[in-house]
């Protein structure tokens, strides 16, 4: 009988395959750099992320200061160090992106496994119709509508909002995978041995859909990063003065000509971060679920 985790590749072999995979390698490298930037840059910066520098931070005509030795990436509209805020924005984006992805994976995985295992029953029907209804709304539209309806937001509410809205696709994918696993002989054997349903789901189904969960979670981080930026850009995200790439884009858009560095930094980081997690996720999918 196959046991839990039997379908997973051994860790060492998985790592070797990931390192050999070009997309995974590039994505992993970019993610590592992003994490390093988020963790280290604010510590090395001489500036507080929320402190205005009215001495060195002003450009000509009281515009935001351009890149200089004092402020490598210039200053924003209230003359705060752009580099420091980008790094703090990276922290926020990673926190929200990874946290929301984890929540979405948890919810989607649970719903998908239960629906798949109970295929054809009322439980499956109810859960999948719920997913169908949710998926009929474009994700960003749904998130924006709920975000706009919230009176007050914080990093945690944004995380919960994204996580609670982003599990639908995962549920459908995991259900399909569960259907495959459920048809395996070791599941029938487990039933024949009298194992309880929760035990079968936990010990035998979950480990065998874990690879699907891992790469969908990684891909979801990219989606959540983008969604967080969109929410912040539209004002339904994390409130000021917290640095957020989306908010930085919003605050800098009027200066797209006079101070283009206000847009270039956050725009590049949003694209790079989404790309990094996407590449990593794609690579993981190729390796874990060939």
């Amino acid at each position, binding site marked *: 009988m196959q046991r839990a985790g039997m379908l997973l590749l051994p860790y060492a072999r998985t790592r070797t395959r990931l390192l050999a995979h070009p997309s995974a390698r590039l994505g992993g490298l970019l993610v590592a750099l992003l994490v390093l930037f988020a963790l280290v840059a604010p510590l090395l910066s001489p500036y507080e992320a929320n402190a205005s520098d009215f001495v060195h931070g002003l450009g000509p005509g009281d515009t935001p200061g351009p890149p200089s030795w004092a402020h490598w990436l210039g200053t924003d509209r209230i003359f705060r160090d752009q580099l420091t805020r980008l790094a703090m924005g990276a922290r926020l984006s990673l926190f929200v992106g990874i946290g929301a992805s984890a929540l979405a994976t948890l919810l989607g995985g649970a719903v998908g496994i239960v629906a798949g295992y109970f295929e054809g029953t009322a439980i499956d029907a109810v859960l999948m119709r719920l997913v169908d209804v949710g998926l009929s709304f474009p994700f960003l539209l749904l998130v924006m509508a709920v975000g706009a309806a919230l009176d007050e937001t914080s990093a945690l509410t944004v995380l919960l909002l994204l996580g609670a809205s982003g599990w639908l696709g995962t549920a459908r994918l995991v259900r399909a995978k569960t259907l495959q696993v459920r048809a395996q002989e070791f599941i029938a054997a487990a039933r024949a041995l009298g194992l309880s349903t929760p035990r079968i789901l936990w010990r035998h189904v979950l480990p065998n859909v874990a690879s699907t969960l891992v790469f969908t979670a990684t891909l979801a981080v990219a989606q959540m990063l983008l969604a967080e930026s969109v929410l912040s850009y539209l004002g339904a995200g994390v409130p000021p*003065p917290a640095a957020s790439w989306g908010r930085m884009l919003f605050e800098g858009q009027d200066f797209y*000509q006079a101070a*283009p560095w206000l847009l270039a930094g956050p725009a590049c980081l949003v694209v790079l971060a989404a790309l990094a997690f996407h590449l990593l996720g794609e690579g993981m999918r190729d390796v874990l679920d060939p």
Partner: protein
Amino acid sequence: MSWIRERLLPALAVALAAGLLASAPGCHEPLQAPEAAAHPDDLTPRRGGVLHLATIDDIRSLDPAAVLGGTEAQLDPLIYAGLVDIAADGSLAPDLAESWDVSADGLVYRFVLRRGARFHDDSEVTAADVKRSLERALHPSTPDPYASFYESLAGYADYVAGKAPHLAGVEITGPYEVTFRLDHPDATFPKLLALLPARLVCPGAGERYDESFVACGAGPFKMTPGGWERGRQLTLVRHEGYFRPGLPYLDGMNMIFSMPALTQRFKLESGALDVVSELSGPDATGFRADARWASSRAVEPFRQVWGEAMNVETPPFDNVEVRRAVAAALDREQWAKLKPGLLRPTGQLLPPTIEGFRADLPGQVYDPAAARAHMVKAGLAGGWPKPIPYLIVKQDINELTAQLLAEELAPLGLHLDIRLASYPTFMARTHARGHAAISHQGWQQDYPDASDFFEPLFSRAAISDTDSNNMSFFVDDRLETLMTRAHREISPEVRRALYDEAGSIVVDRAPWAFAFDVSSLRVWQPYVRGLRSHAQYQYPIATVWLDRDPREGKLALGFGREERAGFGLTSGSGSAR
């Protein structure tokens, strides 16, 4: 996987590189040159053409009896005429009234109307319309937020209480003569007759407010069927029967709503808009720095004051020393850098355009040491132990000032917890008792008079539990006395002295930490002629003319020739000469 390597990555790389190159310093797209006037030296107005405007706002109603303010209050004077009007310099000027006189005791005003003035429905304007329109606006069933302004009218209290069918203080003393009797002298009364509630509506409007009313007055422009597409645009056409001969020069005007400032700028440059006055800070700076637009731009008068309203009923701002500390912690000069040239740092209530403003009045000033001393006096040397919720509306400057304020108050131990809220939520909470300890607030004049700043913001009468204009819930007996006396005082000199003392009280007791007065840069294409700054109105376009049809020979963006044809407008319909 190969598509990622072969397509996605190169595409992203190219997009990133293009984005960076496009945004690199030195690659800025300069402002386009203005479109030249056809007859720049000819000052004779020409008739014809449609003026194209836009605003970031939207409007809810065009009924002068139910206008809250904002853009609709700026548009209504184009549709409705009153007995008097506010002139460009802020003085009172005759409008439908030919003349007026006031009794020696200041209690009786007699107005004589022009003969032959006509409403948009071609009926003649008479004294009966004055009384009917005012009673319609002040009736208790009408949601008119300005009704209480007219409390000095004899019989007002009985009328709004439903005890009297008519306003006793408004008498028709002839077909073209109307007399107002006041219970007590009211220095603001003549100016109140220029406000929207006193503007005349067509007889078809009836005697009571009705939401289905289609805008109809005696102003220079009139509505056409379908002229207001809610949420999208408003089109007005010339009122051919306007009582000022030859005016307006324009065939009509079109205003598009909810257009972002950046879009307005592009549409001005492309010629789709003729005038803009809601430019973003950098765009305003760009236009001000561009010599080609030098003769087509103007900084409008400061009509608004902004600051931090502190609720004196809510800790820690129930302590006057804490409020003084906040007032001393605001670095107003730095705040003004958020919109160079358009924010004027101020430490007092009245903007400089208001009679009663005194540049030498000792206002609130930035003094961090004094701010700390005030906190010590308040017994809060270590600061306030809890975060203070601070609601803001997502709207550019508000978000920036909130962050600056939080930064400046943090050293005092006052930690703001900034929360973004929708506009209705912000209004509901900051105007309700006990909900907001401190909030960023502004006040724009309803009419150019000091009373319109003091009384709504700091009088006892302006306090209500759910919809308080007095957002700091500040009451001071001496201030109350001064405001009442000044309101009733006819002598300008005495009024000024009274408001000086009132101003000193609000500066010292600091229910608000005053921050800046706000203006805007108006930019127009040079073929728009006759556009002048106005003390009250953002769109004083009755005397504006186009010296050529700017959309002749090309398809206009937004509201184009085809759409104009739908309103029966003609373009370039000749010259007044």
